[in-house]
């Protein structure tokens, strides 16, 4: 799609003349504003949520065109895929709507325009180019780890938000974008094929992950050089250069940058650097802050640095709300686990310092009184009340596991439970990040596939003799958690109460164990 950056004119609706004028209010939910851009398949409008005032971009596609080009099934699949990739550097799809004639994608609105508008004013300093490249590669790696490939990384798809952070758009929508390419529009600064990997151009079967990384390499070159690595006025000649991997780094590139580019713009896909290799590169790593984040609700992220050793455990959002996920540093693999969407509801046992003051976000005050459970707390443990099961069975098979909590009942004193949790943590090579007399949070020191594992445990009083221990994963990969849970946590708790009673799983929640 051609985005008319800068012009922003909405004067001409363009295209279909017979098309009735667009509704001013979409579903009573969005006030549709000016046209931001349009392509063969889609028009993008600025819009505002009537309820929240939030700005969004709405991509409107004509069903007829999509049907004619046989892309409907593809679009359906991509919607499901996009739902799985929520990342601070990826433009998010919020919801989908449809009428008889059209499909509407409601997406995050990114205000800062295209990254390449910046380059058009001149090449970037190497540090700036690196920063954008880091953000690009980390989001691409994140998607690859979830089996999602972009397939069309190019200037128009790299946007900047208010804060100057990169936002990659049109992830997973490549089929539509690819088709758009046939509209014959090659853009002034950089024609689309310039970013495409040689193996893709030659229409061989290709490894989508490696192809994406090639495109990232071209982007990096352009950012730092101010021009394309493979350029020729003659398209055939350009193709030839791409196939041969013929490019020359300008003399102002540092040796480290040149070295990295040679590894990324390698015409042989097997030889080409993987995302993990790129992220391990010396030039790449300069100033790179690995981060992990959790999805707070469907619109916001809490980010925390993984490289920050100053024991800044994430401001301990005492609400272990959603599943967390880490920045992708993983090798491209098809895994369905990880980041997700769900469960932004408050944690069941989020007994926010009940009995004490009800500061809504109970800070990790260490003198918190241990909460005791009443009938309502206990009843709400029932799986019968948890309707989320309805959506999992019928829903997307690849849906990530629900970040449910596991609860144990123990007859041991709280101190011993805490000690056992800490022992389990240290046996697993994890560090205790915070502790008071009714809770402990532990964090992995080793980076797993999905970032460092973090686990929080809270203790509540069921009866004067019995405690309920709730354990949940607050970040990191599901598989890592499973391993920790099965191999370390359970045995140590079992030992704890073996002479009293078998440790009972209060709500044997298979969802937390199924992976």
């Amino acid at each position, binding site marked *: 799609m051609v985005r008319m950056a800068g012009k922003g004119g909405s004067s001409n609706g363009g295209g279909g003349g017979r098309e009735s004028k667009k509704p*001013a209010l979409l579903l*009573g939910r969005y006030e549709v504003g000016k046209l931001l851009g349009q392509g063969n398949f889609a028009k993008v409008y600025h819009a505002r949520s009537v309820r929240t005032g939030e700005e969004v971009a709405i991509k409107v596609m004509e069903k007829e065109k999509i049907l004619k080009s046989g892309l409907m099934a593809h679009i359906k699949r991509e*919607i499901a895929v996009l739902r799985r990739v929520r990342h601070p550097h990826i433009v998010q799809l919020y919801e989908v709507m449809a009428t008889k004639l059209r499909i509407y994608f409601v997406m995050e609105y990114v205000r800062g325009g295209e990254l390449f508008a910046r380059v058009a004013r001149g090449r970037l300093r190497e540090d700036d180019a690196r920063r954008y490249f880091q953000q690009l590669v980390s989001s691409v790696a994140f998607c690859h780890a979830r089996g999602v490939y972009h397939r069309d990384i190019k200037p128009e798809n790299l946007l900047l938000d208010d804060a100057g952070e990169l936002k990659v758009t049109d992830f997973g929508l490549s089929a539509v974008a690819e088709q758009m390419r046939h509209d014959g529009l090659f853009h002034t600064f950089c024609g689309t094929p310039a970013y495409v990997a040689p193996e893709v151009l030659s229409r061989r079967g290709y490894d989508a992950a490696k192809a994406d990384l090639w495109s990232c390499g071209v982007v990096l070159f352009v950012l730092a050089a101010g021009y394309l690595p493979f350029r020729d006025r003659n398209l055939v000649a350009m193709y030839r250069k791409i196939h041969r991997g013929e490019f020359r780094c300008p003399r102002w590139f540092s040796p480290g940058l040149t070295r990295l580019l040679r590894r990324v713009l390698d015409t042989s896909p097997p030889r080409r650097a993987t995302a993990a290799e790129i992220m391990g590169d010396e030039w790449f790593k300069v100033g790179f802050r690995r981060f992990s984040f959790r999805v707070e609700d469907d619109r916001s992220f809490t980010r925390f640095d993984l490289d920050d050793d100053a024991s800044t455990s994430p401001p301990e959002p005492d609400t272990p709300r959603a599943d967390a996920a880490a920045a992708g540093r993983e090798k491209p693999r098809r895994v369905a686990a990880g980041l997700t*969407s769900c469960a932004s509801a*408050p944690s069941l046992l989020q007994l926010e310092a009940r009995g004490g003051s009800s500061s809504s976000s109970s800070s990790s005050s260490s003198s918190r009184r241990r909460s005791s*459970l009443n009938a*309502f707390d*206990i009843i709400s*443990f029932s799986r019968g009340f948890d309707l989320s099961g309805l959506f999992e069975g019928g829903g997307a098979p690849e849906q990530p596991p629900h970040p449910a909590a596991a609860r144990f009942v123990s007859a041991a004193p709280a101190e011993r439970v805490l000690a056992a949790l800490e022992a389990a943590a240290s046996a697993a090579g994890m560090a205790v990040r915070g502790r008071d007399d009714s809770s402990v949070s532990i964090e992995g020191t080793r980076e797993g596939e999905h970032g460092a594992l973090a686990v929080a445990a809270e203790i509540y009083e069921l009866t004067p003799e*019995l405690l309920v221990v709730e354990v949940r994963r607050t970040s990191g990969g599901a598989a890592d958690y499973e391993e920790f849970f099965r191999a370390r946590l359970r045995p140590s708790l079992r030992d704890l109460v073996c002479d009293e009673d078998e440790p009972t799983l209060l709500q044997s929640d298979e969802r937390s164990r199924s992976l």
Partner: protein
Amino acid sequence: MGCLQTKHASRSPHLLDTREAVALAAETSFTVSEVEALHDLFRKISNSVIRDNLIHKEEFQLALFRGKKQQNLFVDRVFDLFDQKRNGVIEFGEFVRSLGVFHPDAPEDQKVAFAFKLYDLKQTGFIERHELKEMVLALLDESDLDIASDAVEMIVDRADTKGDGKIDQEEWTEYAKDNPYVLRNMTLPYLKDITMVFPSFVMHSEISETDMAV
């Protein structure tokens, strides 16, 4: 656009009636598209055992417990509340209206009221002490947990803040306000994603542009 319909030349009874979708959207926090996406889910659940586009209790249990049939007091309660007409099955309209309460954007007082009805087992207008106890025992049973009966009494007592043996709507509303987590089962974040989880509707939606612009 005749060509759009080639695949659905004759409308199958499985398809959602457009007017119904529009009406349900008007009644709930859902958009028309979300109602259509929910219809996809509804079709799956309601035809899992008996292919009649109605959710029977058995189908409800299967869906909730992922393939395992399980008796559960709480599932029974939820089912009964979904089954507004009390005819033993959940129809699509009932399904949407009830789930509407669980929408993250649904008004809080709807959630409070729904939860109250859930706990008011005998529908006397009060959550009575014996009902609380019955539910606690059911949960302990569900969890294979055996605790002393005086401990059970204590757990029940903790919930009855006034100590008069029953909890009325007002008391419950106050309690829910002070302890918002008791409503956490009443919000399903999934519902916000429903159009992306069940995107099939984008192909066969028959909603007109004017219905979209309500």
